């Protein structure tokens, strides 16, 4: 702790007021040292930009018993990335990566839509439930496959999941026969557009998954075991951790999360285009995880950070058109964010930044 406190005098200017006691870590110091400080600060800056561009941005109103407003919209849109990123967080915590989640999402959407379209009564709730269950079961299988390649065969995660990333969209096309399959099922489309307890169902699902994951990893030893495997799989195996099983499990979980995300995305348009569904969502998910402060070197993860990261990405996507830049330029800003976040995480960049900032400590805080 004391080491992390040394830079505080320079950075503590921005957080809310709090007396900095000389001996014990004060509130300000604790805030400054908290791993969520930067992601939350970045999100706050983005929200402030939005409010400056359109003052009614934060307005949330009740309509027909549902909450409406830009903020709710952003939260609803962030649900798929939130879901995928939750799985990705655990995978990255084991020092792995899963590139195939976008393809898995496409396969899930493809299976669900083809099943519903082929059902006897297309509008029936039962058809939707059966279709979604089948889709998720297939996603678990795909996750098992990824986990098998990584944990048993021992291929580098980035390459092992590359296989499914390349082949997955082809498989999804195979399922839909290359067509854009459109379905007409209220239960299914409610996944994306429905409301429960005044909140969008998609958001509730995503938060539910995140919450459940947090509960499982933080209230049991699972989280610690995952981190142990991420730090050194061999050492944790010798210490009695079943590293192989744990690695396998996280890939299955990532597959399942990606499947749910795929269902939500497909439900949003009530159709599936195997070529574009979930395109680059793996990169967004990795971005969310990185923004949230989870190190790509593994061994440490923060689900709360991932949550903030996913919301940040959705907010960014919303902000860019709001301030009058074509929404396609989204990627440019994402690139800047990736570079900034990585530089902030990089010890070397931090050291050089610190030495550059010591003479004049007035700058900072917005990065």
């Amino acid at each position, binding site marked *: 702790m004391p080491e992390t406190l040394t830079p505080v005098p320079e950075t503590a200017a921005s957080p809310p007021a709090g007396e900095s006691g000389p001996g014990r870590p004060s509130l300000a110091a604790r805030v400054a040292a908290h791993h969520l400080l930067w992601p939350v600060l970045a999100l706050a800056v983005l929200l402030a930009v939005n409010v400056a561009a359109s003052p009614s941005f934060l307005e949330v109103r009740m309509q027909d018993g549902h909450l409406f407003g830009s903020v709710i919209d952003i939260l609803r849109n962030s649900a798929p990335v939130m879901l995928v990123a939750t799985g990705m967080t655990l995978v990255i915590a084991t020092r792995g*990566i899963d590139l195939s989640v976008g393809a898995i999402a496409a396969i899930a959407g493809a299976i669900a839509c083809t099943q519903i379209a082929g059902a006897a009564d297309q509008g029936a709730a039962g058809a939707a439930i059966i279709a979604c269950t089948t889709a998720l079961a297939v996603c678990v299988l795909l996750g098992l496959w990824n986990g098998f390649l990584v944990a048993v*065969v*021992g*291929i*580098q995660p*980035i*390459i*092992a999941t*590359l*296989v*499914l*990333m*390349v*082949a*997955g*969209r*082809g*498989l999804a*096309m*195979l399922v839909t026969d*290359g067509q854009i399959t459109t379905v007409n099922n209220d239960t299914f489309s409610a996944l994306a557009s429905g409301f429960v307890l005044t909140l969008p169902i998609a958001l509730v699902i995503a938060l539910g998954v995140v919450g459940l994951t947090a509960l499982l990893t933080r209230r049991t030893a699972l989280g610690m075991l995952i981190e142990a495997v991420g730090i050194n799989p061999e050492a944790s195996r010798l210490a009695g951790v079943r590293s192989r099983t744990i690695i396998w499990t996280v890939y299955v979980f990532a597959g399942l999360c990606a499947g749910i995300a795929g269902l939500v995305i497909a439900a949003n348009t009530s159709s599936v285009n*195997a070529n574009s569904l979930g*395109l680059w969502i793996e*990169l967004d998910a*990795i*971005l969310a995880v*990185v923004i949230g402060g989870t190190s*790509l070197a593994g061994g440490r993860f923060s689900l709360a950070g991932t949550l903030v990261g996913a919301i940040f990405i959705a907010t960014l996507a919303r902000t860019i058109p709001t301030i009058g830049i*074509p929404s*396609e*330029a*989204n*990627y*440019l*800003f*994402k*690139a*800047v964010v*990736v*570079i900034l976040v*990585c*530089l902030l995480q*990089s*010890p*070397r*960049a931090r050291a050089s930044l610190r030495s550059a900032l010591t003479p004049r400590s007035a700058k900072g805080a917005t990065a």
Partner: protein
Amino acid sequence: MSTTTVTRPSVAPSGPTPGRGGEPSTWERVRTWAPSSRYLPVLTTAALFLGMFGVGGLRYEGFTDPQVFLSLLLDNSFLIVLAVGMTFVILTGGIDLSVGSNVALSTVIAAKTLEMGWSPYLSVVAVLLCGTLLGTLMGLLIHYFDIQPFIATLAGMFLARGLCYLISVDSIPITNPTFQEWAYKTVDLPGGYYVGYTSLVALGTVAIAALVLARTRFGRTVYAIGGNESSAMLMGLRVAATKVGVYAISGFCASFAGLLFALYTLSGYSLNAVGMELDAIAAVVIGGTLLTGGRGYVVGSLFGVLVLGVIQTFISFDGTLSSWWTRISIGLLVLVFVVVQRLMTRRQS
């Protein structure tokens, strides 16, 4: 010739007589020749290519026509150049995800500058400079700030794609006469066959890259970094310059491939080459380059691209298969090669 083979065993124990017993005869060398295990992956890929070509020839009429092979080169010239750059990066144990976007950016820059009335040569220089600059920047981030190649090039990918959209959202046709001449120019071969200029340029790139890797200090350093970066550093090799250089080369190759792609489609479009980085990586993997770095050849990547091309030719000759089978079969091929690589490295360690 055969007499020397017989006498050799009797000569050998009595003492080395230079010129006779010390060296096996030509016939002996031919008889016991086995390819060095270093070349085995490349030869496997080459055999795979020839085998697939042969199977295609048996199944479809006209498949083995030399022109089919020449068109294969023409249709994949940009991918060949892209795979060459990717080979350099993967040999150092890195990866470059930005090349697909870099290709798109290059086509857009070329089309836009030509539309603005730039000289085609100036436009080519601008494209190559942009691509190389992007690659160099990523290399600097990777080496000097210890950012993982995967993440740094991911940022590069987003950056290039974003710049594309910023320059133009719509597809821009290329009407410049010089570009059109380059695109359509062919070299006539005996027998009525012809080969496009772009394919010759791509093959030239492969030759230069192979020469650089095999014969220069830079090339040896690339292999050394892939083998073990810390050892390379301790040996006093120029690790920093080489690592940044490798990404610069990849950026250069990507922009060069972008030019070839612009010639191929005669347009610049920001949605070009989505997922082409995957094809390039797949080609390198199928070409036998070890993904952990340190081993592999550019020629292997050339064969890797050709294998991918044959799959596509298969599908177009067959007519009943749909194009998504390409992706599935590429995925399967990558899987097979990766698993074989894994088994080979496991046996050695």
